[in-house]
């Protein structure tokens, strides 16, 4: 595709529910990244994929957060038993060895 796409654009859920956020990277980009941006804050790194493996998961806040990537393309970020502090915009980015990171529009998650 022309750019990184994410779905859904907005997600409202109740505390304790599980959510899945999807990222479609730019075709051919081998690296994929997830970030979280809370209101008025900078982007917080969550996890990095190279192909289907995740050599750096250091930013995942707790074991309620997990991510996978299949076929070297689409990635899903899953948050189990959501809490109100999980409310944020979740941004995905992709890159190739010769490019910087290109960001998607983000998914705004609201946990009630």
């Amino acid at each position, binding site marked *: 595709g022309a750019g*990184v796409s994410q779905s859904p654009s907005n997600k409202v859920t109740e505390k304790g529910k599980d959510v899945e956020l999807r990222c479609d990277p730019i075709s051919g980009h*081998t*690296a994929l*990244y997830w*970030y979280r941006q809370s209101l*008025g*804050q*900078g*982007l*917080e*790194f969550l996890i*990095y994929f*190279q192909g289907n493996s995740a*050599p*750096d998961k250091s930013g995942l806040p707790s074991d309620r957060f997990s991510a996978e990537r299949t076929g070297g393309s689409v990635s899903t970020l899953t948050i189990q038993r959501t809490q109100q502090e999980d409310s944020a915009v979740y*941004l995905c*980015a992709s*890159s*190739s*060895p010769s490019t*910087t*990171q*290109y*960001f*998607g*529009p*983000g998914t705004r998650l609201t946990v009630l």
Partner: protein
Amino acid sequence: SQKIEQNSEALNIQEGKTATLTCNYTNYSPAYLQWYRQDPGRGPVFLLLIRENEKEKRKERLKVTFDTTLKQSLFHITASQPADSATYLCALEWRVGEYGNKLVFGAGTILRVKS
């Protein structure tokens, strides 16, 4: 501790003037420093990258300086326009693995250009 600091206050300037945004960092030794623009409801958009061995980089009305001794980068927009109004993010970059790069972002500075 490691920190990246940008102007915490919004920067309000008049159209046509030069906007200067600051990024200071401590306890990092990045290979690169990047500047991104972010509009409300959108993801960041890459603007400029400067390497640790470069002092200055220009692109059209944009100029970035990088002082690794002071651990500071300055981002200038000359002849500013209302369309330049946005949040500008500074990011430090390292290579990770064979093909990836890791970015650590500052909180951003809001720029408002008034006509």
